[in-house]
């Protein structure tokens, strides 16, 4: 099985962040496997199951999420958020499917007249498919995920 080094994992995460920050959402979508899961829980307890999540997208729902960003009637993203993702504290572990990459992130988001900061932890489950690493699952734990949140309609 193809191994993923920490340097490769970091490069992957930086490339993913750049696609989001540059608004190349369709290219970002292509990083995901066909059976991918994109998951942002609200629960602090990891054993709580899916419960009522912030996001629990399969590939089709993730495609919706991307395509609505191109819709001028998606009011919560008119004007669109500008973002800068910063990724650090990367750990790589071998996983059954490929690799499990853990990272921390800081995200600056600016929209209308307001700049906001978000922080969280990410787990990418990556799988090597026809010459490239694909995201089989991306799980995002926002630091304040159990608190009242406001407009998270940009991509994290």
């Amino acid at each position: 099985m193809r191994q993923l080094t920490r340097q490769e994992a970091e490069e992957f995460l930086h490339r993913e962040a750049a696609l989001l920050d540059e608004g190349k959402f369709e290219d970002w979508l292509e990083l995901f496997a066909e059976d991918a899961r994109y998951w942002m829980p609200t629960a602090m307890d990891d054993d709580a199951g899916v419960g009522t999540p912030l996001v629990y997208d399969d590939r089709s729902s993730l495609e919706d999420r991307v395509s609505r960003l191109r819709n001028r009637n998606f009011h919560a993203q008119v004007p669109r958020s500008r973002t800068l993702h910063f990724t650090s504290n990367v750990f790589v572990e071998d996983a059954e499917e490929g690799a499990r990459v853990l990272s921390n992130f800081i995200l600056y988001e600016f929209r209308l007249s307001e700049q906001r900061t978000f922080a969280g932890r990410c787990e990418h489950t990556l799988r090597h498919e026809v010459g490239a690493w694909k995201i089989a699952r991306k799980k995002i734990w926002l630091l304040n995920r159990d608190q009242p949140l406001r407009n998270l309609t940009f991509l994290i």
Partner: protein
Amino acid sequence: MARVMGEAGDVAVDELVEKGRVHRRLYVDPLVFEKEMERIYYGGWVFVCHESEISEPGDYKTSYIGRQPVILSRHSNGQIYVLLNRCMHRGAQVCQEGKGNTRAFRCLYHGWAYDNKGDLLVVPFPEGYGEDFDTSKLGLRAAPCVESYRGFVFASLNPDVGALRECMGPAADVIDLIVDAAPGGEIEVGAGVQKYVYYGNWKLQIENWVDGYHPSFTHQSAFALMARKTGAKPSSQQGSVAKAVSIPNGHALLDFTGSPRAALPSGDGDAEYQAALESRYGRERAREVRESDVQILVFPNLFIQSNGQHFRVVRPISVDKTEVHAYPYALKGGSEEQNRRMASRLGWWASAAGFGQPDDLEAFERCQEGLRIESAEWLLFSRGLHREQRRADGSVVGDVTDEVTQRGIYEEWKARMTDGR
């Protein structure tokens, strides 16, 4: 005439609401907000929690009545107490956790401790107080009135508030319809909570919950995605059999029963569910329950949506900041799979990252900004005024896109704010 000092001096509250329009000060004036806390949130019934959130003796949850922190506490006698979360010694909150189970609430500051119904149990070094020091008078303050209906717990800080059932009126029948969808006769909360916040007045949310006019426009992008998947044309509910209903005492209902939206696709285990429902309620009631599709505002702070299998609670923070907590609920005796799916689906629509709610919040924040403008003073709620019908039970009915629901809300608002009853 009730008057409050407004942003530009004295305001006559009863001049702020007219038939079919309300004044912008309802949304932007901090002194109107203060009066609302006193008259609506502390003077009437407000929803505080669902019984299933604190089902065991010793269970508690912290929340708010208006802006005042409370503890919802289940005593070993089974009763729920709504305790004001403030030590009677020097004022510190005695409970910081959101939820838990405890035998006592112990103040961190000087160790005073209270039991689950707020009685003062422990005062450290009691010899330091004189003989007239009476601990029986120093229990946590409690809401004098706590009642529940079908598991929904309401409290009032006003001892003369009257019976809950009386305040609910025909709204109780709607709650019956919603809860009777559970073959076990009750609903249960326990799959987590969605919390969102916006910079806008709390009434922007409650008037939106029962606004059948906005979806085709506010949610245009979400409906376009749904239409692409199902092949259905996104259409307005205008002219459908769906109805907007204003229920006495400020409650309001959108009733989609019989409209295209009401026909829910049945899933696995549907036959089993149908049988369970019929065996509990009989065939006729089971049919009525299954065909219904309702969403109701229980004034001032609770919203329940049958089709979305969840309820939401509004929490006013200030005149221009509001939090909302949305709870998926499980139908007791219903399909586990459906209960799980509905909890997840609530996030899909209503989370801060969801496909629906963020567009509403965008609208609320733009309203709050727009309402800063002083030269345009009024908001219009006159849609359908010429075609509304009054029913024998005091309800007023209109087309689902009519503003009959908002008119009912503001009629009640005016009555509460001005001794108008």
